[in-house]
């Protein structure tokens, strides 16, 4: 890949995007398609985030699930310029339970997707943002 970049056949951005499916997607639907399809809604996934975030540049988000056999966990923000922002791969014994701080450009749904025994499930939480966090 490095030689392809040097030859100008592949841009650095494309090389970087390779192996990171979904991170270049500009819509939630495209990101979910890249991740592997349309997830089924599940009430066994919990998304924690503030109802109202004063500062969109620093929004604490938690995702946890009691679904079995979770190997991957994705966090997306529907109205961000690039909705997919994190993809976690969990080894056996690692709990589907992560917390992270994210940027939100505007009020949006936060979508958590988990892969449980090979199938995709999701849950959603809406967070209102009073000051967008993507910078001007």
């Amino acid at each position, binding site marked *: 890949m490095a030689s392809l970049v040097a030859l100008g056949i592949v841009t650095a951005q494309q090389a970087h995007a390779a192996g990171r499916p979904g991170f270049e997607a500009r819509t939630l639907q495209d990101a979910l398609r890249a991740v592997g399809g349309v997830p089924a809604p599940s009430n066994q996934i919990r998304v924690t985030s503030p109802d109202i975030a004063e500062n969109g540049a620093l929004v604490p988000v938690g995702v946890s699930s009691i679904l079995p056999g979770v190997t991957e966990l994705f966090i997306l923000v529907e109205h961000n310029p690039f909705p997919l*922002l994190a993809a976690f791969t969990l*080894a056996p014994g690692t709990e589907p339970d992560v917390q992270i701080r994210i940027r*939100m450009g505007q009020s949006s749904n936060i979508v958590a997707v988990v892969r449980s025994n090979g199938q995709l499930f999701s849950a959603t939480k809406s967070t209102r943002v009073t000051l967008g966090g*993507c910078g001007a």
Partner: protein
Amino acid sequence: MSTRPMRIRATEEAGLTTVRVLMEHPMETGVRRNADGAPIPSHYITLVEATHNGRAVLSAQWGTAVAQNPLLTFRFRGAAKGDRVAVRWTDNRGGTRTDEAVIA
């Protein structure tokens, strides 16, 4: 770019180890512009890898919307007090940093 060590706190209780990691990183999105109007190039962590006694427990691919100075919490089973947890991040400019902590 030199960064201060990650602050890693790992505690075990009833078989469950909780790891909290604070990483120092600008997580520049690439969208901002400087005072002259020129875009500030993106500079953000793209990959995080955590190990327990050398065994991978978690890896994460991140985009530009993870906040500056990322604070990550995750949990896993099968570790004991005194074991080592290591966290490595890699960013989109080839920068990387690894730090370790002992589970308390």
